[in-house]
C-alpha cells in the first residue's frame, strides 16, 4: 500500500475572519481583516485578552493571549470586537459540511482545524495539490474566509505544513522535504514543544527542529522520558496516528471561571464552586458517566496557581456529593488570599449505569432522582428555570462555565 495523503485545513485567524465575514455579509463596508483589529474578551469581567488578531495587527507585534490594555498601547487605532461562540460553531460546522464532500475520513481537531484523509482521491479531484487548491478556493468563495492547507503523508507533517506561510496558501511537506522545509525552523515551532520544553532544549544547545531531529533519541528518552522520544519522532516527521472520525473517549470534565472581582470570603467562594459543580455535574450526567476524582484549582490575585485533588470512596455523578468534596478540598488549600480564578475538574470517569454501591449511603437514590428532575426541568424550560435559592440577589450566576450554549464546542487537543 502506498503512502497516505493527509490534508490539514486551518482557518486563518479564525475568530477574526469569521467575525469579519459575518459583518461583511450583514452590509458592513469595513473588512476587519484589512485593519489592525482583534477579538477580545470583556475587560470589565477581567476576560480582557486578545483571542485572535488580524494580520495588520500582527505587524504591531500584538500577540494572542496578551492583555487588551497592552495591545492598545501598541496600536491606538486598534478595533476590538467581542467574541461570538455561536458564530464560530456555525462557521466550523459549515466548513465541516463542505469538507465532507471531499472525504468521509475527517477529524475535527479543534474549532478551526480539520484533518482530512484524501488517499486515493486523485481520480475525483486531481492531484493532491490541485484538490487542495480547489477546496481552499471554494471555502473562500462560498464561506467567505481563507484557510491554509498542509499536505503530507501523516497528520503531524500536514499540520506543520499548514503553519508555513499565511494566509490563503497551500503547502506540502513530504518526507523528502523535511530537511529543507522543517529542520531550519526554530524548535518551538514543532507541535508539542511548549514553553517549558523549549527552555530545556535551549540549555542543551538545541535551537532548531533539525538540531532536535539529529539528537540521539536514547539520550532524549533518558532526559525527557517518553515526551523526549515523542518530540524526536515529530522532528523526524514520524507519526502513525489515524484520522479519528469519532470523538475521543471522554477522560475528564472541567469547568473554570475567571471572576469579575477578587473573591475574598468563603461564602462567595463556596457559591462559585457550587455554580461550577452544577454545570460540570450536568455535563457528567449528560455523558452518562460517574467520576471518581474531584480536583479544585485556584489562582490568586498574584497569578499563583495551585490545585488539589482527592479520590472519592465511590464514583458519583451527583451535584451535591461533588460540591461537598470540592468544598473540603477548597478548605484544605485556601489560606484566605484573594482569588481571581477557580476551577473544578472531574476525572477517572466510569459508566454511570454500572458501578459499586455502598451500604452506608442511603440518600443516594433520593439525590439521583433530584438531579434527574432538575436536569429535565432545565432541558425543557432552559437552564435558568430552576436555580438554588442561595444565588438569589447574590449577583453570581447560578450555573457557571461553558463558553457557549452548545456544550459540544471543540477545544484544542494535544493528541494528534
Amino acid at each position, binding site marked *: 500500500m502506498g503512502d497516505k495523503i493527509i490534508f490539514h485545513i486551518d482557518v486563518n485567524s479564525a475568530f477574526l475572519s469569521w467575525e469579519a465575514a459575518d459583518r461583511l*455579509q450583514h452590509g458592513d463596508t469595513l473588512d476587519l481583516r484589512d485593519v489592525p483589529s482583534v477579538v477580545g474578551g470583556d475587560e470589565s469581567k477581567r476576560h480582557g485578552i486578545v483571542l485572535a488578531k488580524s494580520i495588520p495587527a500582527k505587524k504591531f507585534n500584538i500577540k494572542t493571549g496578551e492583555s487588551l490594555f497592552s495591545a492598545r498601547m501598541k496600536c491606538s487605532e486598534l478595533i476590538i470586537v467581542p467574541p461570538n461562540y455561536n458564530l464560530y460553531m456555525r462557521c466550523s460546522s459549515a466548513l465541516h459540511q463542505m469538507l465532507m464532500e471531499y472525504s468521509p475520513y475527517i477529524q475535527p481537531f479543534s474549532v478551526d482545524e480539520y484533518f482530512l484523509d484524501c488517499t486515493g482521491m486523485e481520480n475525483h479531484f486531481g492531484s493532491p495539490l490541485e484538490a487542495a487548491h480547489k477546496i481552499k478556493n471554494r471555502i473562500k468563495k462560498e464561506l467567505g474566509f481563507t484557510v491554509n492547507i498542509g499536505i503530507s503523508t501523516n497528520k503531524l507533517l500536514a499540520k506543520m505544513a499548514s503553519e508555513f506561510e499565511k494566509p490563503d496558501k497551500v503547502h506540502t511537506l513530504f518526507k523528502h522535504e523535511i530537511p529543507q522545509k522543517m529542520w531550519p525552523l526554530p524548535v518551538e515551532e514543532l507541535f508539542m514543544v511548549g514553553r517549558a520544553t523549549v527552555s530545556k532544549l535551549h540549555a542543551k544547545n538545541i535551537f532548531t527542529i533539525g538540531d532536535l531531529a539529529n539528537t540521539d533519541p536514547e539520550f532524549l528518552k533518558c532526559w525527557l522520558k517518553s515526551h523526549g522520544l515523542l518530540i524526536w519522532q515529530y522532528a523526524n516527521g514520524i507519526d502513525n496516528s489515524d484520522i479519528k472520525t469519532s470523538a475521543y473517549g471522554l477522560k475528564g470534565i472541567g469547568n473554570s471561571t475567571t471572576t469579575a472581582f477578587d473573591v475574598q470570603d468563603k461564602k462567595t467562594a463556596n457559591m462559585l464552586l457550587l455554580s461550577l459543580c452544577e454545570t460540570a455535574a450536568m455535563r457528567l450526567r449528560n455523558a452518562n458517566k460517574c467520576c471518581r476524582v474531584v480536583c479544585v484549582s485556584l489562582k490568586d490575585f498574584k497569578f499563583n496557581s495551585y490545585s488539589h485533588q482527592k479520590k472519592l470512596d465511590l464514583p458519583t455523578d451527583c451535584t451535591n456529593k461533588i460540591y461537598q468534596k470540592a468544598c473540603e478540598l477548597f478548605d484544605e488549600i485556601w489560606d484566605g488570599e484573594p482569588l481571581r480564578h477557580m476551577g473544578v475538574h472531574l476525572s477517572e470517569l466510569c459508566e454511570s449505569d454500572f458501578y459499586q454501591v455502598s451500604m452506608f449511603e442511603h440518600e443516594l437514590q433520593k439525590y439521583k432522582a433530584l438531579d434527574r428532575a432538575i436536569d429535565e426541568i432545565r432541558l425543557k424550560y432552559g437552564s435558568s428555570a430552576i436555580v438554588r435559592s442561595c444565588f438569589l440577589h447574590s449577583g453570581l450566576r447560578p450555573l457557571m462555565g461553558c463558553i457557549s450554549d452548545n456544550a459540544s464546542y471543540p477545544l484544542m487537543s494535544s493528541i494528534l
Partner: protein
Amino acid sequence: MKPIEMIAWFTKDGIPTPIKYKLSFDDDTVDIIKIDKIIWRSEEKIAGNRMLIFCCQSVINSTEKIYEIKYELNTCKWFIYKI
C-alpha cells in the same frame, strides 16, 4: 444594508418570492415599493449563514431601479442591499 418590512409569498415547497415592502428614507418618509420583476435569485452561505439573494426591479421615486434584497433564513429578516 438595512432591514425592511416585507410581504412575500411562499410556495408549498417553501420557495419565497418577495412582493412589496416598506422603505423608510433618511427624512423619515416611508414608501411602499412594489417589486415589478425578479431578475435573478441566488443563495449564499458566507460564514455558514444562509441568505437568499434576489435581484429586483422596482420604480422608486419615479425612476426604475435595479437592486438586491436579501433574506436571512436563520432570523427570517429581509434586508435591502446594493441600491
